[in-house]
C-alpha cells in the first residue's frame, strides 16, 4: 500500500539539477555523439589497416604543439569546473572568472588547431590520409566551436544574474557537454597522433 501513498515531503519544482529533463537529455545526446566519434575512429583504423601505404604517408606527426594544445583544452575544462563549483557554493560573481578562463582557453585551442591545419602539407582532397585527418579533426573542431557558443551563452546568463546556488541547471548541462568535447579530444589525439608511433614500434 505504501507505494501508492501521496507524497508528504516537498518536491523540487521545475528544472532542478539532475532531476531535470535537460540533464537526462544531454546524457542521451552525449551517448549518440560518442557513437559518432566511435564510428569516425573505426573508419580511421579500418582504412589505415587496409592500406598498403606507409602510415601516415607524410611521416610521423609532431607532438609538441598538439600536446600543448591538449593541455590547454583540459585546462579549459578544469576552469569551467571551478566556475561551476563556485556557483554551487553561492559565489556567482567569482564563477564568472572561471567561465571567462574556460572560454579563453577553448578559443586558444581553436586558434592553435587552425594553425596546425595551415602547416599541413596535405589537404582534405589530396589523399586518403588527408581526408581522414581533416574530417576527424574537423568534426571535433566543430564541436569545440559549438561548445564555445554554449559557454558564451552561459557566461552571459550568469552575468545577467539568472543563476544562483539553487538554480543553475543550464550550467550543469552545458558543462557536461563541454567536458565531453574535451574527453573526445583525448581519443582523437590518441588515434591521430599517438597510435602511429605504436604502429611503427
Amino acid at each position, binding site marked *: *500500500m505504501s*507505494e*501508492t501513498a*501521496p*507524497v*508528504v*515531503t*516537498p*518536491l*523540487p*519544482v*521545475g*528544472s*532542478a539539477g539532475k*532531476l*531535470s*529533463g535537460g540533464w*537526462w*537529455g544531454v546524457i*542521451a*545526446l552525449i*551517448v*549518440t*555523439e560518442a*557513437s*559518432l566519434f*566511435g*564510428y*569516425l575512429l573505426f*573508419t580511421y583504423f*579500418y*582504412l589505415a589497416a*587496409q*592500406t*598498403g*601505404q606507409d602510415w601516415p604517408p607524410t611521416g610521423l606527426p609532431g607532438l609538441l604543439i598538439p600536446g600543448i594544445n591538449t593541455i590547454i583544452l583540459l585546462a579549459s575544462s578544469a576552469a569551467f569546473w571551478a566556475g561551476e563549483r563556485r556557483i554551487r557554493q553561492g559565489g556567482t560573481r567569482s564563477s564568472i572568472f572561471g567561465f571567462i578562463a574556460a572560454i579563453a582557453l577553448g578559443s586558444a585551442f581553436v586558434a592553435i588547431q587552425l594553425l596546425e591545419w595551415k602547416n599541413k602539407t596535405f589537404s*582534405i*582532397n589530396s*589523399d*586518403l590520409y*588527408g*581526408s*581522414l585527418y581533416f*574530417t576527424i579533426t574537423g568534426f571535433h573542431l566543430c564541436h569545440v566551436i559549438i561548445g564555445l*557558443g554554449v559557454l558564451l*551563452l552561459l557566461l552571459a*546568463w550568469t552575468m545577467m*544574474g*539568472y*543563476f*544562483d546556488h*539553487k*538554480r543553475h*541547471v*543550464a550550467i550543469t548541462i552545458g558543462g557536461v557537454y563541454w567536458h565531453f568535447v574535451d574527453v573526445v579530444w583525448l581519443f582523437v589525439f590518441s588515434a591521430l597522433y599517438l597510435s602511429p608511433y605504436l604502429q611503427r614500434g
Partner: protein
Amino acid sequence: MAAIGATRHRIDPPLERIPEVGRIPAGSPIEARLEKIWETAPGWRGSLSTVDHKTIGVRYLVTAFLFLVIGGIEALFLRIQLVGPEMGFLTPEQYNQLFTMHGVTMIFLYALPVLSGFSNYLWPLLLGSRDMAFPRLNALSYWIFLFAGLFMYISFPLGQAPNAGWFNYVPFSGPVYNTGPNIDVFALGMVLLGISTTVGSVNFVVTLFRMRAPGMTINRVPILVWGTLTASVANLFAIPAVSLAFFLLWLDRQIGAHFFDVANNGQPLLWQHLFWIFGHPWVYVVVLPAMGIVSDALPTFCRRPLVGYTAVALATMATMLLGFGVWVHHMFATGLPTVALSIFGAASMVISIPSAVAVFAWIATIWLGKPVFKTPFLFFAGFVALFIIGGMSGVMTAAVPLDWQLNETYFIVAHLHYVLLGINVFPVVGAIYYWFPKFTGRMMSEKLGKWSFWTMFIGFNAGFFPMHIAGLLGMPRRIYTYPSRMGWDEVNLITTVGSFIFAVGVLIFLVNVVLSVKRGARAGANPWDAPTLEWAVSSPPPAYNFATIPTIASRHPLWEGRIEGEEEHSRTKLEEGYLLMRGRETLGTSPIDAKPVVILKMPEDSYTPFLVGLFVSLLFVGLLLHSWTFTALMTALSCAALSVWMWPRRNLGQRTTRHDPASAGRGGEGP
C-alpha cells in the same frame, strides 16, 4: 482540497512544494481552467506552434501514410513494368529511380515515422503523464522529418531522383559513376532525417525514465513502450553510423575526399560496414514497436492478459542486443574470411530465438483466450502468420551457402516484404482500427474493415509468395525487364495481379478512414473494454490527458479485480490524484520504481521548433546547391533560434526566483 487561484503563480514558481492531491470532476470550473492551461491557440498560429504530443502523433501518422501511398504507387509502376517479359512501360533509368525511391520512402519515410506517430500519441497516455519529456523537441522532430521527406523528393520531378537502391552501394553511388544530383539529394536528406530520428529517440528514452505515473514500476509498462524504448536506444547508437556514411560519401562526391575511392586507397567495403551496422538494427527498429503494438492490443481481443509479459519484454531487448552483432550477414557475398561468415551466420540464426519467444507468446495468448474476431484481431492474427513465413525465409538466408545462392534474387525481395509488410504494415493497419476511436471519438466500419483485411491478406500472399519461386528460379532483383522463356512469366504475372489486389485492400482501408472520421458511430472512452491506461480518458482525450495524475497498481489498470489469481488489496487510482495545475505541470518519477521525485514544468507552445527545423532544413538546401553564403546564413539563424529556445525561463524553474526558498511551497496549492 480544491485548487484555488492556481494559475496566478505562473511567473515565479517556488523551488519546492508538496503537490496537492484531489479530484477534478468533469465539467467543473477547475477542469475548465486546466483545459485553458493546456489548450493550443486556434488557427495557423496554433498549428505552427503546438507542442501537444497528440497533435504531433497524428501528424506523424498522416504524413507517414501519405508516404506509404506514394511508395505504393511507385511499386505499382514497377509491377506494371514487370507484368510480362520485354515490357517498355518504364526506361531502365526510370526503373532504377522508382525502385530506389520506393525502398527509401517505405523504409525511412514510412516504416519508422508511422510507429513514432503511434508512440508519440500513445506514450503519455499509456504512461499516465501529461506530455512527453521534451514537447518542443517532439515538434522539432516532426518538422525535420517532414522537411527531410520533401527534401528527398526535391529532384524527383526533374527525373534525377536517387537511383542506387536504398542501401546505395559505392562505387556505383560515388562521384565517378553517378554524376548528377541524385545521390547528393539522398545523402544530405539522410543526414537531415537522422537529426529528426535522433532527437525523437532522445525524447522517448528520457520520457520512459522520467514521466511514468507513480506506481507504474518498470515491470508494469506496456510492451509497446518496451518496443519503442529499445528501438530508440538502438537509434542513439546506430543512426550516427549511417549519417556518417552518407556524409563521408557527400565529401567524396563534392569535396573530393577519398574514403571510398579505390584508386586512392579508399575502401568501398567501408560503406557496407557503416551502412549495415546501422541497417540491421534498423530492421528491428521498424518492427519491434509494431510487435509491441500487437503484444498490447491482441490481449484485448483475447480477453486475457498477454502470456509471458516478462519473457516478451526481455526478448524485445535481447533481439536488439543481438541485432547489433549480425550486420555482416548482409555482406556474405563480399569475400570476407570464412570464420567471420560462420560467426555472423550463427549469430543470425540465434536471433530467431527471441523472435520465436514472442511468436509463442502471441499464439498462447490467442489459444488460452476467448478471441473476439473484430477487424484489429484479424490484422494481428494475420501478422503472426506472416511473421512466421518471413522468419522462416530469414533463417534460410542466414545459412551462408544458401545465401550465396539466393543473394540478389527475388527470394530476398519476397523475404523483405514478408518481414516489412507482415511485421510493420499489418500491425500498423490493425492498430489504426484499434486506436481510431481514441484518436477521433468514432469507430471505424467493421464491414469495410473485414473487407479491407481479406483483400489485403489475400492480395499480399498472392503477390509476394510467388516471388520466392521467382527467386529460386534465379530471377535477379533490381532488373527492369527479363526475356521470355526464362520460366518467369507466370510468377510475375501473378505477382503483379496480387500487388494490385493488395493495393485495392489498402484503398478500402483508406476509404474506411475517410468515411469513419465523419460518419463513424460514436465511441465512448473504452469501446473495446481494453485494459490499458489510454482507455481511461475520454475519446478523443483532452489537451491535458489526465485531469489528475493517476496512481498505478498493476499492468492492466482497467481490468483490475477481473483477472483470476490477482492480489486484491492495491488498486489503481484514476479519479483522485495529483492536481498539478500552476501552469503546465506534470510529475517526474524515479526511473525504476516510479516514485514521485520532481514537479516538472512543461513548456508553452512555441514557434522555435518550427523555425529551427526550417532553418536547419534550408541549411541542407544550401549545401546541396553549394551556396555557402546561404548555408552560413541559415547556420546563424538556426543558432539564433536555438538560443531563444534554450533561454532560461523563470516559469520553467530554470532561473533563480525571488521567492524565499524556506517559506515557499509549504502551503497548499493556493496562494
